């Protein structure tokens, strides 16, 4: 639904639906954590969290109905965080082990 000013308004039903989706995904997060999937557990937990965040961004924060510029700002924020973590992790992961360094 759109108001006269062109603003997208979500219905009650839709908002409750998103809430339910988020609750279900929270349950999945917890459930999956207790299943041994080896190294996949961590990336999977992050993936589910990412989906939940995406749902909040798109529907509660109205990104789905926002301008391209707004979406770009959200993407850039995420991308810059990834740059910070990726480059820093790359340093640690590419260090040659030195005898006597922390355990």
């Amino acid at each position, binding site marked *: 639904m759109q108001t006269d000013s062109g603003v997208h308004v979500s219905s009650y039903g839709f908002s409750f639906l998103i809430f339910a989706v988020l609750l279900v995904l929270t349950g999945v997060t917890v459930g999956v954590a207790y299943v041994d999937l080896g190294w996949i557990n961590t990336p999977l937990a992050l993936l589910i969290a990412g989906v939940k965040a995406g749902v909040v961004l798109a529907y509660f924060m109205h990104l789905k109905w926002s301008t391209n510029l707004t979406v770009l700002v959200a993407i*850039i924020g995420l991308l810059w965080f990834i740059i*910070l973590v990726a*480059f820093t992790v790359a*340093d*640690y992961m*590419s*260090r*040659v082990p030195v005898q006597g360094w*922390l355990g």
Partner: protein
Amino acid sequence: MIEANPASNYLGAAHGLRSWLLTRDHKRIGVLYLLGVTFFFFIGGAFAVLMRFELATPEADLVASDTYNRLFSMHGIVMTFLFLVPSIPASLGNFLLPLMLGARDLAFPKLNLLSWYVFMVGGLFTVAAAAFGGVDTGWTFYTPYSSTYANSNVMLAAVGVFITGFSSILTGVNFIVTIHKMRAPGLTWFRLPLFVWAHYATSLIMVLGTPVLAITLLLVAVERLLGVGIFDPSLGGDPILFQHLFWFYSHPAVYIMVLPGMGVISEIITCFARKPIFGYKFIAFSSMAIAVLGFLVWGHHMFVSGQSVYAGVAFSMLTMAVSVPSAIKVFNWLATMFRGSIVFDSPMIYALGFIGLFTIGGLTGVFLGTLGLDLHVHDTYFVVAHFHFIMVGATVMAYLAAIHFWWPKIFGRTFPENWAKFAALMVFAGFILAFFPQFVLGYLGMPRRYHIYPDEFQMLNVLSSAGASILGVGYLIPMVYLLGSLRIGKKAAANPWGAKGLEWKTTSPPPVENFETPPTVEGDVYEYKNPHVVRPPEVTLARG
């Protein structure tokens, strides 16, 4: 010619301290910032004077070692965070951006005023830290010294910098929104003055980089309060992690400090060459490229820290890449001047100084970014010389160029050109004498942050200190004639330099609402008539 009516311009519109301290007018806020940054410049400069006096002799005869550590630390902190970062954007950017965009104010005037108060409070904490004895960690706050072992006012200084950072963020948000949403009719992106492009790129860095510094200083504070090993290796932490987080902001920060200056130079070169700028889009896009690439090179400050060699290689290569857009700008400025009709007014003298000194500073940055070479010159005076060539030789000269260029617009007064030319030349000469010897000193092996050195380095140090004195006098002279112009200067016309851009189409000083009637933009911005391009008649006829 547009006459200025004193009662109807922003300076005369209201009187009294309250009208300034509670203003929402971006022009007044720009002037408030101008006062603030000037104040902090002289405080930071005072620390530098003491340092250069001490360095005139090889022994530690003026100040104790601990005091010297505090001097260079406070000099760096005050100059970086309280002067260089806000210098052009917060004073001139605030004043000029709405005018250049044909707008009545920035998008968020109240947030703008708040940013000034946040800036002054942060500055107050930092100056308080100095008053209580300063910090001795260097402006870089490296751990575990800053987080565990230092006995100086780390918390006070860190809190000061933390608070000041939010001023940056608020300014950046304001600028980005204003540029996106409040351009005058007809003002498309590629008709924007390059000053605006430069501030757009700067604002992106302010918004994305500053928060990381904030959280990093917070972690240092937590470590200091609780002693829990976030950055202390003896407790399981990693000091290099601090460096990653610190430089993630502090490298892009140097582009915050230089990009606005580049925007100023673009405006001045085209005006005083009487020629449209060469390669407008290249300059615009190069600002954006610097902003983006600038975030990918921070590890070049950490080549010898213990960072992985492979990371070092990657950061080194990316550092080569980030130098390219800067070089593109220099070539475009030179091409603009080529076959132009150069006018050697004082803003142009500063601008020409910028180009030469920035080129040297930038090239030496490439030396430092070369992994193998950096092993020899890291933490020497070579580094000190490099960044002073950029920060002082380039940025401060651009700042002075901008002050002189837009002074008539901001205050409605002209200043004595002869004094200005003299001071500009004095600044240029003093700067080279002060800082070029430092390249030699660094290459010969004199470490930075040392106040004791071998006797054979004294000559170069004395030259440097002498140059610093000349530079200092050169900075004081404009204070005299610029302040004097407010009283006895001739009233300025709307466009005393014959420049293009919307800000010159309104009175000097501008009215409160900036324009009598909101402007519409019909053509490109730098439509200076090129003095030497005259089509031979045969060509015109052949085209039919």
